[in-house]
């Protein structure tokens, strides 16, 4: 084990980690909005709204992320003339844009499926009560269904966040310098294979469990009304029992 090479390459690895985190956060923010809209269309009774999103979800959940990245990054090259004409080619030329677009579409599909389950798990009585109060449509979604559904979706969504964070390592294949990309470049130069890769792995591990910890805190905070209340008399009772 050569520790010097780890110390020397650590700043570069941190730079890579920064790109990884950045692309994860952007993909999550945009993907969240997309997934909410898609999930609402998915539970709609209108078949014209439902059918296209079913196809979208099935495609992005049924194919590997790598195929999706290649389809957008290399595949767009086949339509270069058309894309240039509508002025989008300069976007599709950039690996960063293609990677972000793919990750957004991918996490959008997975999260939409999570949100759909959560929306359908909102107790029917609550929706009926809201309707009886005169709410419908967007107001019903905004005030009653979405807040409840998001709380129900949180555990599954935290898994999706971890999944997305880890799948960003694939963007290194289309030349982006994320944590995996930086590690691969350093290894190609120094041949210190496992020192570098294991350091990169530990960085991923640290962020993953950090994020999980934050989610656990949020979950704890949001479920306060469901927990048993602390009994202020318990301490006194225990003390009495100890004396008896």
């Amino acid at each position, binding site marked *: 084990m050569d520790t010097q090479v780890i110390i020397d390459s650590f700043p570069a690895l941190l730079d890579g980690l920064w790109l990884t985190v950045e692309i994860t956060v952007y993909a999550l923010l945009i993907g969240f909005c997309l997934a909410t809209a898609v999930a609402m269309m998915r539970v709609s009774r209108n078949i014209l709204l439902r059918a296209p999103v079913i196809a979208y979800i*099935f*495609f992005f*959940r*049924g*194919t*590997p*992320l*790598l*195929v*999706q990245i*290649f*389809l957008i990054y*290399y*595949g*767009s*090259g*086949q*339509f270069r003339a058309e894309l240039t004409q509508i002025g989008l080619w300069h976007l599709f030329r950039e690996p960063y844009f293609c990677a972000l677009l793919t990750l957004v579409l991918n996490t959008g599909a997975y999260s939409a499926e999570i949100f759909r389950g959560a929306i359908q798990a909102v107790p029917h009585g609550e929706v009926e009560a809201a309707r009886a109060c005169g709410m419908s449509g967007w107001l019903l979604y905004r005030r009653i269904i979405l807040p409840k559904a998001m709380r129900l979706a949180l555990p599954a969504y935290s898994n999706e966040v*971890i999944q997305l964070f*880890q*799948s*960003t*390592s*694939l963007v*290194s*294949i289309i030349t982006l310098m994320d944590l*995996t990309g930086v*590690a*691969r470049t350093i*290894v190609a130069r120094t*041949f210190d*294979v*496992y020192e570098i*890769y*294991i350091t*990169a*792995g530990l960085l*991923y*591990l640290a962020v*993953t*469990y950090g994020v999980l910890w934050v989610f656990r805190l949020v979950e704890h905070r949001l479920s306060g009304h469901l927990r048993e209340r602390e009994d202020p008399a318990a301490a006194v009772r225990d003390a009495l029992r100890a004396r008896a």
Partner: protein
Amino acid sequence: MFDLKGYGWMLWEGLAMTLTVGACALLLAVVMGLLGAWGKLARNPAARLAASTYTTVIRGIPELLLLLIVFYGTPTLLQKLAETMGHDIRVDFNAFTAGVMTLGFIYGAFATEVFRGAFLAVPRGQVEAAYACGMSRALAFRRVMLPQIWRFALPGLGNVWMVLIKATALVSVIQLDDLMRKSFIAMGVTKLPFDFFFVAAMMYLGITAVSMIGQQQIERWANRGVQRA
């Protein structure tokens, strides 16, 4: 629909390789999963620690990085070990072995959780009844536990397979001729990237669809003796 310029056969070859890697990796994952579940439920604290370290580490590191660690790291590690013992050897890791081992190892961690749940789902009283009838631990495991574990584990294992078969796309990174790499090669010659990757995507989608139907059939068959509510 698509003119593949006579390169369609390459994709079929790639598909065969993808399925082979997937099947071998699944087999390894099931073995690792049973071992892991046994470790997690063992009374021995060392076994418990080993099993939970295994699932914790695997869950926290991206598959691609693990693949690179196994494929490039293991030969170097073995060579350095041999060097310290005074031997000069050259280890070359076959891409197929590395791919199967990594994927099996990764999804073994997920299978561990599946089997752990299945072990716990077998009613304790049945096992006690088996002991009371004079069965040994091994016999009770084979006759009473195993037939039910496999039934409880099926839905979870189906999910592991679906995720695993998609993860096989990564082995193209270590130059194994799977569906992805074959599409990549065909794309290089024909300059039709969208067509080839789209057809490859459709093939993966086909695998997913067939797996979903197959999973339903197997589950129905496995649950044929169970009353439904």
